[in-house]
């Protein structure tokens, strides 16, 4: 009797476990998926901007009002895993109609795998977008355009206007003034520059904010791409040395400070300046809505190659069409809308981002100041724009090297040559 009970229990437990293991998980946010007849279409848009879900929903409400019968479903995934999630989604059957895709190098695997639809000539307004921004949406091999650029990110030095006032400081316009500003701040009990060196992705950004003018921005980009120089160029090494020189103005043992710590340092007033991207503007306005923030371009150091201070920038995010989408016509229509000034204005107003579409007004003070500076003198965020087309990524190598520099384990020349060795694994200049 006992044995029969046990056998029964074994079967029950076993089948219960098996069934739970095989049960399909409920698809997240299912609902109708465009299988309606004729007019009613649901377009699925994927992105990594989990911070902006609500804002995108209100943006798409605008589109849905203008286009009755179309529903836009916006879904966001974790940033660091998005590339893989997207690749899998595009290959499967339940993927997005319009995925937000990365720019430049990280876009290429999806293009090469034939997962995106080329859109040359099918989207009006693409020719209005700046070529350097559009370059982030182009296939490196075939030169075709695969997406509509969403935003431009600019890199600059943010500063706390109130702290500057308290210390009688003005925005520096020469390198001497820049050093003086930092020395004054160092002498007071405020950290001059907040940097989260523990998260090494911020370090190439910092290197370009401080050093792009020194190594010559766009000119240098041209020379590296056609092979007339390498990253071991003395001007580039000198720009990395500047990063090391700035160490004294950062938190002591800055490699222990995380990126989020550094943001808190700035928004709580413990640090006076924050070298960062325009993507910080939205974060700062949420974390410290009462703070008076400004931004400036770091002045040119002695022996700088550039003629005026620059704002490094890059295209950030594009909208593409899944080549397997059953709703390509409707998707193309939405993509056309993405290239209109109307959408660009929504990007500026709702998302606090610089739209890739020209002709947009930035009402936010911080944004318009940064944008005006950018329009004065542009440069590429070199390693992200041109050196992410192979493994190892230029940004990853430099990030680690700058960390080592800040720890005292590496010097500027060594960092530059490690960067050169790293990218030479896959980069060949196009003469």
């Amino acid at each position: 009797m006992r044995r029969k009970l046990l056998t029964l229990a074994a079967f029950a437990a076993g089948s219960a476990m098996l069934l739970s293991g095989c049960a399909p998980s409920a698809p997240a946010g299912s609902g109708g998926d465009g299988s309606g007849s004729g007019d009613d279409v649901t377009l699925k848009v994927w992105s990594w901007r989990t911070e902006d879900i609500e804002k995108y929903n209100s943006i798409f409400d605008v589109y849905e009002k203008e286009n009755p019968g179309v529903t836009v479903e916006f879904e966001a995934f974790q940033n660091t895993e998005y590339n893989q999630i997207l690749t899998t989604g595009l290959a499967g059957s339940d993927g997005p109609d319009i995925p937000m895709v990365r720019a430049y190098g990280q876009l290429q695997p999806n293009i090469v795998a034939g997962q995106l639809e080329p859109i040359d000539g099918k989207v009006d307004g693409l020719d209005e977008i700046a070529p350097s921004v559009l370059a982030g949406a182009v296939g490196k091999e075939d030169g075709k355009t695969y997406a509509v650029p969403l935003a431009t990110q600019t890199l600059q030095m943010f500063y706390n206007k109130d702290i500057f006032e308290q210390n009688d400081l003005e925005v520096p316009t020469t390198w001497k003034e820049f050093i003086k500003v930092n020395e004054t701040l160092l002498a007071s009990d405020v950290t001059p520059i907040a940097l989260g060196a523990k998260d090494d992705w911020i370090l190439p950004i910092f290197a370009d904010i401080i050093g792009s003018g020194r190594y010559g921005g766009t000119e240098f980009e041209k020379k590296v791409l056609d092979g007339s120089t390498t990253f071991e160029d003395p001007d580039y090494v000198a720009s990395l040395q500047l990063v090391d020189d700035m160490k004294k103005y950062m938190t002591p043992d800055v490699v222990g400070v995380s990126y989020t710590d550094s943001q808190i340092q700035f928004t709580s007033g413990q640090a006076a300046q924050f070298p960062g991207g325009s993507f910080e503007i939205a974060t700062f306005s949420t974390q410290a809505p009462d703070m008076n923030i400004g931004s400036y371009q770091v002045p040119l150091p002695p022996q700088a190659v550039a003629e005026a201070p620059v704002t490094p920038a890059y295209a950030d995010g594009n909208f593409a069409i899944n080549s397997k989408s059953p709703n390509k016509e409707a998707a193309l229509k939405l993509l056309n809308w993405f290239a209109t000034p109307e959408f660009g204005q929504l990007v500026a107003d709702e998302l606090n981002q610089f739209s890739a579409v020209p002709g947009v007004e930035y009402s936010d003070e911080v944004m318009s100041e940064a944008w005006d500076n950018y329009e004065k003198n542009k440069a590429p965020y070199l390693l992200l724009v041109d050196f992410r087309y192979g493994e190892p990524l230029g940004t990853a190598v430099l990030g680690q090297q700058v960390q080592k520099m800040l720890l005292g384990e590496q010097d500027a020349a060594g960092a530059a040559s490690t960067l050169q060795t790293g990218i030479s694994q896959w980069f060949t200049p196009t003469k």
Partner: protein
Amino acid sequence: MSATNTRRSRHIGITLSKRTGLVFILTALILFTIFVLYPLLTALSYSFFNWTGIVRGDFSVLDNYVTLFTKLPYSEQVPNAFFNNVLLFVGAMVFQNTVGLGLAVLLHRLKRFKRFFQTIFTLPYLVSPLVVGYLWSLMLSPLFGPVNFILKAVGLEELAQPWLGNPATAIWVVVFVTAWQWVGFPVLLYGAALGGIPQEIEEAASLDGATSWQRFREVTFPLLTPAIGTVSVLTFIGAMEAFAIPYALGGSQGSPAGATDVLSLLFYRTAFESGASNAFGTSSAIATLLFIFIFGVAVFITWFMRKAERKLY
């Protein structure tokens, strides 16, 4: 046949018929095959191909493995990560298992509050290791964390370092946090093993005039060999596979400067964050190599411990 019979008669419990036993095993076997064996074999097969995203390319035999040891960044990161894994294992053996053994012995002799202490020691490993790592990273923050604040308040300013920002100390923080979380594991296992040692042997030893330390060294410790073997193998596997705590403390890059990088982090980075075209091929190679290494060493340790055990009987 007689050996198994003696083994069985030492255990108290229900003896099952062969058929019932088979049903239990079959369920586990099916789940194991679907969720462990199948992914394992497919990962092995993936590592032999070239991938573009998730489109499989040509059969590249051992190219992915060769890449791991010859091309940057892998040729530098793989040995570095492996070294850190070994450090984690040694650190766990030295700090976690010795302290665990000591605590288990002390608890064994404790008459009152035994359960209470056992619960306290095992509480940390009921918490997700990601949460543990994250909380420790907050506590050790040089700007906002309480640890440095307390050290400075007490006057130990030289110790108030950026523990997670210094490559020399960061890996030891990982060792310490892992040991802190998992100390309950050897406490439980050794505690159970100690409970299985017949009291008469200990009494006989003390009657013969052995001191407490002599008793432990000559009697208790040798009898714990099976438990030590089990704990060592499991610690080894855990140290080689460590992911959650290094990820929470150092991020997926193994900051600072790769000092907390471990093989699982390298795998995760390569597979999901690198955006490289051949991410699947290279990461499958890493995963396969890791598996073969862990399996091989685990089998070796087990064989070695069995030999040591047999010397006892």
